[in-house]
């Protein structure tokens, strides 16, 4: 292959997929760094990707389960046998008329990811973590002004003007699950005179760099922003010209009436931010040339739709849509379709989406993908029979991990598993593979082809990047995309008539006058180099039903959700006597959450270069009340789970909150299984079996959890 030179490709230590360069010497990757043609940054996870590539624990051969699910006992098999097992079961499912009971949990790398094509061809559904992380934000923005944002479209910080305001509300962009250039862009914006405001119950790196840290009660974001909106409308300091021109007739009057009693004083009682600070922030925002808002952990609570709605209203009344420094309204590269494309099955009619007792009540709300965390309930109810998983770790990432484990092992009267086939593709040992029937060795980004273009990429959604193999694959590993294309060729040749993945991407790139070779010749990147601002002015409308901004969500009137409630999630409003602490789970730059390839990466779990501990964080005020000493191990108990964990006192968390990093708790792999650290989802209730108010107010978000702490 290539000899001792820097080769452009793409990182996949997390879903940000940054363009990088890899230095290969005698067929071995020695170094990596950000591609200077694409903003030039690569974070610590990416740098440590070489350790993932060469770890001795790499899965090298297809394996078949030999013990019971959960025992993690496997024997090596050949690829032919693995392919036959998958084909046989899927054909059987299709024959039974139950193709829709097939799901593939993945994070698509483009809107036309070949795995997604395969799932559509079968007649099943993809399921992802995306609904949980982002659905409320996406749906709120879609409902209000018809744009599709995502957590990887942080506001474009490089566009923030002097004096602009950057608000991070429960959001940690220095954690680099966006493009690795984001921290630099935020710091650069600050240097040119923008202000960074961090609203967060935890003081983290972002707060340390902020001009103002505003500790807030978890779940209080909707109240805070409604209090600001109320003050702005009352004082007439909102962007009247923008609202007059673009907001649907009658909506501003409706909003004013709704906000009348959402005064800063009233909202302060809910969010625990002083009323004078709500007023101060509102007036700062009204005067600023731009305001951007980003939220992530805060929009995973049971009032996420309300918070997304309040956030959308705030952006509108301050006129911060598709402007420099405001909320981007991204587009996607116009790639060519690979015809014929298999049609997607009807999600609303056939999807396993919305399990549980009040499924009918929530029929108002339909997201575009299945969320992974209803899978356990769907298995129990017989609505899910075949489950594939790639680049995800539902055994740890599914809320209510215990219920997930239970579902994987449940059997019918004949002693057969309810879930008939569970296939996992993985790079390094994962918790999830313990329950798999087939484990297929996947390839790292250094070994595979891929065309990446996603609307949710940080600021360049309409850009494409090519991931190219820079070294020979380890063992018999095969990229999951190629496996699904091969399976597609066996089962649905009409939809997989192209030669291979590279030809598939070639066809797509013809839409922008490119080919894989042309893009590679140009440094493995393609971009028109523009983002475009205020595109709604060119169109003369927003992409909503009325063509105007729709502040009132009339379709939710019958469930009383036409305007956003400022109330905290139900789980935070009840049970405080028994479970006095609010669990605040968060992420770090060092680990890709539950991702087995970072949890099992020695450099990322090294205390010098990564993170090797996940104690429960408590404010010393609370620790004193509980009579806990530093270093004690405590029992943390929620209404659905219980764990034992060491405690660490820190001034950096709001009293009344208990902090825990998301992603630990793996028992598979020599690196990841070290230490007595636990997964936060052991404490968080299973979404499928614990539906409550959050389904009406929270969309797909189900993290809200109260806990008690006992020595």
């Amino acid at each position, binding site marked *: 292959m290539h000899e001792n030179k820097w080769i452009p490709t793409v990182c996949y230590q997390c879903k940000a997929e940054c363009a990088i360069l890899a230095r290969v010497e005698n067929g071995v990757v*020695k*170094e*990596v*760094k*950000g591609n200077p043609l694409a903003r030039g*940054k*690569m*974070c*610590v996870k990416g*740098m*440590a990707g*070489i*350790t993932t*590539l*060469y*770890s*001795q624990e790499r899965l090298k051969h297809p394996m078949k389960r030999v013990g019971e699910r959960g025992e993690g006992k496997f024997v090596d098999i050949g690829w032919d046998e693995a392919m036959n097992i998958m084909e046989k079961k899927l054909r059987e499912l299709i024959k039974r008329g139950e193709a829709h009971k097939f799901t593939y949990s993945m994070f698509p790398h483009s809107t036309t990811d070949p795995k997604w094509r395969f799932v559509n061809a079968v007649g099943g559904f993809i399921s992802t973590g995306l609904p949980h992380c982002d659905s409320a934000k996406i749906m709120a923005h879609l409902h209000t002004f018809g744009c599709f944002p995502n957590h990887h479209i942080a506001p474009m910080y490089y566009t923030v003007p002097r004096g602009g305001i950057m608000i991070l509300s429960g959001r940690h962009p*220095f954690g*680099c699950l966006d493009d*690795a250039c984001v*921290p*630099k862009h935020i*710091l*650069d914006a600050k240097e040119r005179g923008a202000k960074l405001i961090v609203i967060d119950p935890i*003081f983290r*790196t972002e*707060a*340390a*760099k902020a001009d103002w*840290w505003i*500790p807030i009660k978890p779940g209080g974001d909707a109240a805070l922003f409604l209090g600001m909106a109320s003050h702005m409308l009352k004082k007439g300091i909102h962007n009247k010209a923008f609202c007059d021109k673009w907001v649907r007739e009658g909506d501003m009057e409706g909003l004013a009436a709704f906000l009348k009693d959402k005064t800063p004083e009233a909202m302060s009682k809910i969010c625990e931010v002083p009323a004078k600070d709500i007023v101060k922030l509102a007036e700062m925002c009204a005067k600023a040339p731009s305001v951007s808002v980003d939220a992530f952990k805060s929009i995973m609570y049971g009032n996420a739709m309300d918070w997304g709605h309040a956030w959308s209203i705030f952006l509108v009344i301050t006129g911060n849509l598709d402007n420099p420094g405001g909320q981007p309204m991204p587009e996607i590269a116009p790639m060519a379709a690979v015809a014929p494309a298999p049609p997607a099955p009807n999600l609303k009619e056939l999807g396993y989406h919305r399990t549980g007792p009040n499924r009918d009540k929530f029929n108002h709300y339909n997201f575009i993908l299945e969320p992974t965390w209803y899978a356990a309930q769907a298995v129990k109810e017989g609505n899910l029979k075949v489950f594939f998983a790639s680049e995800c770790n539902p055994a740890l990432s599914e809320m209510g991990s215990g219920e997930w484990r239970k579902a994987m092992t449940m059997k019918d009267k004949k002693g057969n598993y309810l879930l008939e086939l569970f296939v996992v593709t993985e790079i390094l040992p994962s918790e999830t593979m313990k329950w798999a029937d087939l484990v297929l060795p996947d390839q790292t980004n250094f070994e595979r082809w891929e065309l990446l273009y996603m609307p949710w990429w940080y600021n360049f959604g309409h850009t494409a990047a090519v991931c190219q193999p820079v070294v020979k694959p380890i063992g018999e590993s095969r990229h999951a995309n190629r496996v699904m294309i091969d399976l597609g060729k066996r089962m649905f040749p009409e939809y997989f008539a192209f030669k291979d993945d590279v030809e598939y991407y070639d066809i797509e790139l013809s839409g922008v006058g490119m080919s894989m070779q042309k893009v590679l010749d140009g440094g493995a990147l393609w971009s028109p180099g523009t983002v475009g601002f205020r595109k709604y002015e060119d169109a003369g409308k927003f992409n909503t039903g009325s063509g105007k901004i729709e502040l009132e969500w009339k379709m939710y009137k019958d469930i009383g959700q036409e305007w956003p409630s400022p109330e905290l999630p139900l789980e935070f409003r009840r049970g405080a006597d028994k479970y006095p602490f609010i669990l605040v789970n968060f992420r770090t*730059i*060092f680990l890709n959450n539950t991702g087995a390839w970072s949890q099992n990466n*020695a*450099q990322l*779990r*090294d*205390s*010098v*270069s*990564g993170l*090797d501990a996940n104690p429960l964080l408590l*404010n010393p*005020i609370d620790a004193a009340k509980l009579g806990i000493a530093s270093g004690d191990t405590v029992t943390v108990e929620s209404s659905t789970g219980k764990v034992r964990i060491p405690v660490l006192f820190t*001034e*950096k*968390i*709001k*009293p009344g909150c208990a902090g825990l990093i998301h992603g630990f708790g793996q028992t598979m792999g*020599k*690196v990841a299984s*070290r230490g007595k650290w636990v997964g936060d989802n052991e404490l968080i209730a299973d979404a499928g079996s614990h539906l409550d108010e959050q389904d009406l107010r929270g969309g797909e978000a189900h993290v809200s959890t109260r806990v008690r702490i006992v020595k």
Partner: protein
Amino acid sequence: MKQLSIMVDLDRCIGCKTCIVACRNHYGLVDHEKSMPGTMSHYLRVESECTGSYPDLKEDYWVVMCQHCKKPPCIRACENGAITKDVQTGIVLIDKKKCVGAKKCIEKCPYDVIQFDAPGKFAHKCSMCYDRVIHGLEPVCVEVCLADALSFGEKEILLMQADAAGKKVVKKKSTQSILYVKS
């Protein structure tokens, strides 16, 4: 004075540790196949200090590498003359061939930055990427810094740049050749 230096901007360092892993990769300090956490050499480390009490907190992050001391105690400690301060650059260098693995430099280093390679029985540390900088390249940590918190150059020039940017030298931390600055 001839002294090359790295300037660490505390306004920008976010403690992300990217530099640590990039440096390890460049110098081949990790056996990617077998290394376990806690066993790998490193030429940099991240430190931080949080002051105040909730909710009035301040926190700084910075990296610590060989400070390329003005009068390096490691040079005095080494009986084999394996450590020198290069006269052209002011960089403190360990000659692996002359090192006998006595570890005395490690004992005397006030910054705890010298590593020991047990299989090879030699001491090693940050060379400010001597082999790169003499060819006009930046040290690896400076090149890859996620937050552009590090800059490289002659110490006098870096001081001038800090002054022009309105940054002050954190004197307590900047007693040797590495500069720590903040607004």
